């Protein structure tokens, strides 16, 4: 397995380089939008634009720009934002804790509710609870996240004049109550869609497992329900669940954009959105590279976890 992991890790720089090249050159295609145009005002002269282009290094041939950028990246310098002229890495690191917390909490709630409801639904198949949870699954997958998030703002305000904390991210170590007030309600709602899907996957995987002979054997041996369902049933149903959780985490990175927008949390999603709107190339290049690495890293973790869950799976 170690060899397999090392081989997969060896691909990372290759794929990162490929993604970088594609991103870098795609951003500089004529129809991708010129950052200088986006920074221009009505009174920006042609000379001003040329000066700006020189300052941003956009006057050089694209291949030269790429070489310079690559050289800087290899030295750990991801450049400066076009607008604010701040180091990209600093700007990202400043915003990272907010996005990380959104992702961790959302994933946590998704897995917690998705798996729990899925197991209950499978174990109590065709019961009132099963029907109720399946209705929840349809609802959760049908209602858009932003709608639920807006309701989360509007209804408590109308009923109790309540507003969630404003002023953006606050560390959980600094002010735990405010942090949880800020993050728990929206991440709970953000998890609705994901947990609905996870519930359906868990339910169908569990139904299949619960019909297996070894489950019948386990019951016949007199094992308690918990041991049968969780230790023998759920463990064997975990592979599709983990695959889904891995994919969901990737999707969450982009789903966080909506939550950050609606709840005014100045995280990475916002940063990426604003930078894309302003054609801030260094930020876009960094974030695409970062996303690629995160996706590849997560896929690797998911793949490796299969072997840990199911001893029959071996990587050579």
């Amino acid at each position, binding site marked *: 397995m170690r060899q397999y992991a090392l081989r997969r890790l060896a691909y990372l720089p290759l794929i990162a380089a490929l993604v970088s090249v594609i991103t870098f050159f795609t951003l500089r295609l004529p129809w991708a939008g010129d950052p200088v145009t986006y920074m221009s005002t009505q*009174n920006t002269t042609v000379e001003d634009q040329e000066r700006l282009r020189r300052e941003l290094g956009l006057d050089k041939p694209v291949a030269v720009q790429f070489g310079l950028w690559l050289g800087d990246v290899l030295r750990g310098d991801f450049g400066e934002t076009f607008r*604010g002229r701040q180091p990209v890495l600093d700007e990202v690191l400043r915003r990272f804790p907010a996005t990380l917390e959104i992702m961790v909490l959302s994933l946590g709630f998704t897995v917690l509710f998705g798996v729990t409801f899925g197991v209950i639904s499978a174990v109590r198949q065709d019961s009132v609870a099963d029907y109720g949870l399946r209705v929840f699954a349809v609802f959760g997958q049908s209602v858009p996240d932003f709608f639920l998030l807006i309701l989360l703002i509007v209804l408590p305000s109308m009923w109790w*004049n309540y507003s969630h904390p404003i002023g953006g991210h606050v560390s959980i170590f600094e002010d735990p109550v405010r942090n949880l007030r800020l993050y728990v309600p929206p991440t709970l709602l953000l998890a609705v869609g994901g947990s609905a899907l996870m519930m359906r996957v868990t339910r169908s995987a569990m139904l299949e497992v619960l019909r297996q002979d070894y489950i019948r054997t386990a019951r016949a041996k007199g094992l308690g329900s918990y041991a049968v369902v969780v230790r023998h049933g759920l463990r064997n149903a975990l592979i599709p669940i983990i695959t889904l959780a891995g994919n969901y985490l990737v999707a969450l990175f982009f789903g966080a954009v909506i939550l950050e*927008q609606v709840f005014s949390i100045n995280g990475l999603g916002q940063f990426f959105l*604003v930078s894309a709107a302003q054609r801030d190339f260094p930020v876009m290049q960094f974030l695409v590279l970062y996303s690629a690495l995160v996706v590849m890293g997560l896929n690797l973790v998911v793949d490796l976890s299969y072997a840990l869950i199911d001893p029959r799976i071996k990587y050579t």
Partner: protein
Amino acid sequence: MRANGLFGRRASRRRFLAGAGAAGLGWGGLLLAGCGDDEGPGRSPTAPPGDASPGATPTSPPEADIPKDGILRLRQTAPWSSINPWKGLDSGLTWGFYVFDHLFYTPLDTLKPELFLATSLEQPEPTRIIFKLGEGYFHDKPPVNGRRVTARDVKASYETSIKQPGVSTTTFMTQVFAGIDVPDDETVIVKLNAPDAWAFTSTALGGVITGSIIPEEICAQPDFMDRDIIGSGRFVFEGHESGTNFRLRRFEKWRVPGEPWLAGMRWFLIQEQAQALAAFSAQDIDTVGLANVLERDQLVQRHGKDIEIDSDLSRSVWVILTRADGRWADPRARKAVNLAIDRDQIIEVMTFGEGVKSGVMPPAFASVSLSEQELSQTLWKFDPAQAKQLLAQAGFDTTQPIEIKVAALGDNFSKFAQAVAAQLEKNLGVKTNIVTEDFGTWLQKSLYGSEYKDLIVFPTLAYDEPTPYLLPYQKDIGGRPNWARFFDDELDQMIARARTIMDDEQRFEALKEVQRKAIEKVAPLFPVYVPRSFAAYWYWVKGRITGRGSYGLFNGRVYIDKRR
């Protein structure tokens, strides 16, 4: 050559990101004075509480009774990409109003300069203006360390700011303004290349951004302001979090003793309007701009007399710009478009009736606007039958659809384009085709580059002075040819002549003549309406000034007092 800034760098991308017509921080700041410039008011079943009359100034209790420990909490609608006032309109305006001092400012109601740091203003000859400076100090931060403001700072500020590509300078600053002499630390002599009667307005020497007094050490290294802001205004910049959640505190050595009456100001990033309303209702912020009259009525119903609503007519005019060449070269074709526009209906659709028709000059500029009676018979005339006749006489090819370009900047933009399209289809019997573009392309290419086929629709920015509203009627719009390709020597000369008339009354009359001539010649820009904007305040925000445009934002006598 540079251009005048009818648009400058709009707050539009912020609005795009904010997803609503809600204002950005600079505009959020404008709400403080109740002089909002945003689109989107709605119907008013009753007169809005606290409706402001122009030039309304507050009456305050004796100063000794005023609590001065309040922090005013405001909304910020989108993160800034830079806090540098020379790199963004939001930062330039906000720090201009609160952190930097100015020599003077000219309110829109009087159009006469009111002195700030300057203690006297003389104009011994039309091209020489002498200011004497009063005593003012910079905030106590390195590298300036609280030293006194000198004339050299004023010179450096004006002369450096106009060279910044991110600052929307104007024809005045680039062509009329010749430079500044500083014979001593307290005397500023502004030299002009030519006489200009509008020299003291906000697009000339009275600019909020170009007129901000910045220490000369910082003018020498403008990138310093990417990290910190040091001015001599009534508030000290304390900090921010990645371009959001700004904090200002009272400057104890502010040149006006005892002011400001606020201990500080704080902005909170709140992008969604629903969230802003919730935060306001929860008393987490002290004021909120309202997108329409429905929101206003709902808030009044919920909070009753605990809140006050300020309302003001915007100076942001929604306009239709046709071309003046090709099939639009015949003035009858252009006039047909104007005659086919039912302004009352558009106001109803766009604002639930809470807007008013606008002439070339928005109605806020009472001294230079044409009377309603005159406009009713000319610019505002609605006559579909005559419109169709004129179109036929002009030989206009009605089989080709009329293309209407609009920026993708939120609901109101597309709603306005749809309203115009519907009226043209109904009243002229022509097909229309709405083309929506992202703001950058729309502004730089379609509008400034004249790359539109038939019509382009937009709201102008809101100004504190009348001259920018005349730009679209000039042959040269700051180095670029007229956007509509409308070239009229007579109008150009009339506008230029008005700039040289130093007597206010005569100049105002000359401006009215310009407007009459523009209407007579069917200049291709057709103003439609200005919306009424609303802002809600908790009862404890006192001392607000309304109806004087951005002048109200320089008010150091706003205070928080929770006593009834």
